[in-house]
Every structure is written in C-alpha cells, then in structure tokens.
C-alpha cells in the first residue's frame, strides 16, 4: 500500500472554544454553538471577517452551517459542509478544504443538546426539541449503541478477560476530570464503585458508558503559514485518518481482529513520522470503556486482550490513574466517561490545549506530540497525530 500524506504539517488548529459540558443547561443548541464558535475565533485572534469556511457537525438538532454563518454575521463563506458526527470527519474536511484552496480559515463547530425523551433531565424541559434516540426501535438489535455491549461480550470471551481494564479506564477518567473545569462529572470513583455499578447493557454497566450532556466545542483551522502570525503556538495536523472495513454492520462485522480502528492505525503509522513511543499526550475515545481498551490494544500499547495488564502495570495507585511510563496520562481531561459524551471533541480540544502548554494543573510536562483516536469499531473510527509547531 502506497500511502501519501502531502498535507502533513500544512494545516494547523489555531483556535479552540468550549462551553463546557453539563446536564443542567438551559440554553439552545444555537446559543451553545455560538458561544463555542465566538470563543474559538477570538482565541485564534481573529474576527468574523476572517472566517470563510463553516463546518457544523450533523448532530441531531444542531444548527446548520448556513444558520451559524447567519448568526455569526460572516461576510463570505466559500466552503461549508455538515459531516456526520464524531469530530474528525469535520476536521479532515476542514483541513482538506484549506489545503486545496477552497477556503483559508475554517470554523468547525459541534453542538450537543440532549433531545427531549432521551433523558429524565432533558424530558422536563418543554423548550427543547423532541429528538430521535440513538438506539434501535426493537430490543432485538445491536445497531448503534448496543453494539458495544454485544462486542464487549466477545472481547471478554476471546481473551478470557475480566472487566478490570474497563474499570481502570473508568476510574482513570474520573480522576483526571477532577482537574478539568469543563467536565460534567467531577466526583472521584473507585474500582469497587465500577464493580458495584448497576448493569445497563450487560456486560457494560453504568460506569462503562459516557453520559449524554449539553455543550459545544469549536475549532478554528488555517494554513500552517497563516498560523505563524496568530497568537498561539500552532498545533499542526501531522497525519489524519478515518477508517472502516467493508462489512461494518454491527452484527455482521467479521471480527475484533480487523475493523475501523485497525484501518486507522495502519494509515497513521504509515503517514506519520512518529508513533506511540514518541507521544506525549494520548486521548483514545471512551464513549464506552471497551472502546478505549480496544484502541489501547489496537494502537499497539499492548497485545490484544492485554489492556488490563497494561493499565495495571502503568497504574499510579497514589494518584488513582494511569501514567504510561510514569509520564503520559490517558485522557487527561477525563474523556467522554467523565467530561461528557462529546463525540470526540473533548479529546481533540484537550490535545490542542496540552500541546499549547495551557492545561494548567493537568499539564503534561513539555508536551510536543499527541495521538487522538475518536470513534469506535464500525463506521466512525478516526485518528490524528498532532504536533506543536
């Protein structure tokens, strides 16, 4: 396989903005999107007249790119799209648009507003749109979210594994979220709490699942050349990848041995100049704990089925979290399990903030490179290698 990566280090993330994530929000999806967008554009040292591309992730109920452009009062928009959720589809599109010359400076926004009918908190808010739940309409289906519980059973069976790896991922995330003011859940949990949590879709329990939240993240991207004139150290897209295998229907996927995560890892390893041995910041998606365990294994930190042993070996008991080789945390912002189900925006934002050296009391010392791998097994696996310019 010949791999091309002409875009390597040519596009930068120059602005980030977040509303933070919560279950007690009373703002609209448009308000959240505009809050994150204006924060990100200002963070980049830019204004409305500088943005000529708008990408809004197609989350249910989220404002469209035209609605955002109108509400932001943009002058001229030359590129706009509404990609499927999980954030790197939008980031890859933004980068390609900039590299190809379709637009110069692109705003990416992902706004989440829990629809009425999907949670108790959301259901009591009469001003919230009614939405379609992301679960199948009959119980006897493993489409969408239940797929991870079903394949988690397979992961346990094939590896003779226990739920220990999932427990460590859950506890690690919650510990890290204590230092993230944007996070929805900021109370510590223990391995015993994970074991005692009620089952929801067995073998996955309440603490194996991210939580639905309201909030928005935004990013501003431009060319590496333009980025040099802006206030923050540019964070360069070194390599990106999205991936799936041909038969990706949840119950027909051939096996745990080759799915979207493998396609992503193969591409990133071939495109990038560095890999996990040289990564300072590591953010694997953790919408379900089993997804993070699989990313850790499939990225090559350990062998398939060995996530528990790996996490135990790098567990810092006094801190109740993982530091790989005593240095590299996993999801220092707390991940989707604790910050909230951001669909990967939190993972990407955290990597950018860390590479800028702006992560405060959760800062990884001298962070220069990051690996972020959003998405799961079937049709939204993604990855990006980032480096500080």
């Amino acid at each position: 396989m010949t791999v091309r990566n002409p875009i390597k280090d040519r596009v930068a993330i120059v602005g980030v903005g977040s509303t933070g994530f919560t279950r007690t929000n009373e703002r609209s999806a448009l308000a959240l999107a505009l809050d994150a967008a204006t924060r990100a554009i200002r963070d980049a040292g830019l204004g409305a007249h500088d943005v000529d591309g708008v990408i809004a992730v197609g989350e249910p109920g989220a404002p469209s790119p035209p609605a955002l452009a109108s509400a932001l009062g943009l002058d001229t928009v030359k590129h706009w799209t509404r990609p499927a959720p999980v954030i790197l589809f939008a980031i890859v599109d933004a980068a390609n648009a900039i590299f190809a010359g379709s637009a110069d400076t692109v705003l990416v926004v992902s706004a989440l507003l829990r629809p009425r009918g999907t949670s108790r908190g959301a259901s009591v808010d009469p001003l919230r749109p009614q939405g379609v739940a992301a679960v199948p309409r009959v119980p006897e289906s493993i489409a969408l979210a239940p797929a991870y519980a079903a394949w988690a059973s397979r992961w346990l069976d094939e590896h003779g594994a226990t739920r220990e790896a999932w427990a460590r991922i859950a506890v690690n995330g919650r510990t890290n979220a204590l230092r993230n003011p944007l996070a929805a859940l900021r109370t510590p949990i223990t391995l015993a709490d994970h074991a005692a949590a009620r089952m929801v879709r067995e073998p996955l329990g309440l603490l194996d699942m991210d939580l639905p939240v309201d909030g928005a993240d935004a990013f501003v991207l431009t060319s590496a050349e333009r980025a040099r004139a802006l206030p923050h150290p540019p964070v360069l897209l070194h390599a990106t990848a999205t991936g799936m295998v041909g038969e990706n229907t949840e119950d027909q996927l051939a096996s745990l041995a080759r799915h979207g995560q493998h396609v992503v890892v193969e591409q990133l390893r071939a495109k990038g100049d560095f890999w996990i041995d040289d990564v300072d910041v590591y953010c694997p998606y953790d919408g379900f704990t089993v997804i993070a365990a699989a990313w850790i294994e499939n990225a090559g930190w350990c062998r398939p089925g060995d996530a528990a042993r790996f996490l135990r070996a790098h567990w810092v008991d006094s801190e109740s979290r993982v530091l790989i080789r005593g240095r590299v945390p996993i999801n220092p912002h707390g991940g989707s399990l604790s910050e909230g189900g951001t669909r990967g925006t939190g993972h990407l934002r955290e990597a950018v903030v860390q590479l800028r050296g702006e992560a405060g009391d959760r800062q990884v010392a001298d962070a220069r490179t990051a690996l972020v791998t959003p998405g799961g097994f079937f049709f939204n696996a993604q990855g990006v290698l980032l480096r500080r310019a």
Partner: protein
Amino acid sequence: MSPTDTPDDAELVRRLAHLPVERDTAAHYRGYLRRELVMNRCDDCGFWHHPMRPMCPACWSWRVEPAAVSGRGTLYLCTLLHQGPPADGVDYARGPHPVVTVQLEEQAGLRFTGTMVGCAPDAIRIGMPVELTWIERGGCPYPAFRPAPIAAGA
C-alpha cells in the same frame, strides 16, 4: 399465520407496524408470517448476506433471491438489556432481556440477532449451539433462538 399467509405489501406493513418493513426488507419480514427466517442469497455466486440488500456484496449481481436459512448456529455475541426499547412481551423489571447474535451454519460470518428463550440469561454462553424458534410479538410470529440439543456445524 400459516404457510399460506401471504398478505400484500400494505397489509404486511400494517400487521408488522412494530418492524421496519421497507422495499429491501419486506421479504425478510414476510417470512416471519410463515415462521421462516429469510435472508438474501445470490443466484450467481451463492453468497448469503444479511441485512437484506438489493445487490450481492460479493459479486455485484442483482440476482439476489430471498431464501430461508435453517436457523441453526452458534451463539457469537450476547448482551443482557437491563433497560431498553419497549416491546410487546418484554418487561425489564422482571429481569434482563437477552439479545444474542448467532453465527448461522449456512456460511461463515452470516449472522442474525434475536432474543434467547429456554435458557436463563446467566446461563447463556458464547459458543453454545442454538436453533431457531418463534415467539409472538404484536400478534405475529417473531424469530428467537433457543439452546440446541446437539452441536451445530457453524
């Protein structure tokens, strides 16, 4: 509900209102009324596929024909729903509802997802041989699996 139960499309959609009966899936759901688990098989290359698609993913032939599978196979995935979508005959308060994906004996990797009956949820094991059975949902037959007395060939 007999081998001669062959409603027209409008009647099929009305009777199976709880299921996503559409152009490409109608033959699958129509099979429920005959208590047959129907999937598409390619007339040109013999490849089975599921869910139902109008073209063979293996050889791109359009000559795909619905045909009944045996329903025998091996349990491949299992989740126990402690909460989930409401459905006729499913009461999460009485205990978790099993959802299993079965690898069918017709072809490696050909699978179907349903519930499991005749077996306590905590006794369900990946790798156990199972066979097709039928339960009732919305007044119509609905496929399910139960433990098979002898090992299947899947």
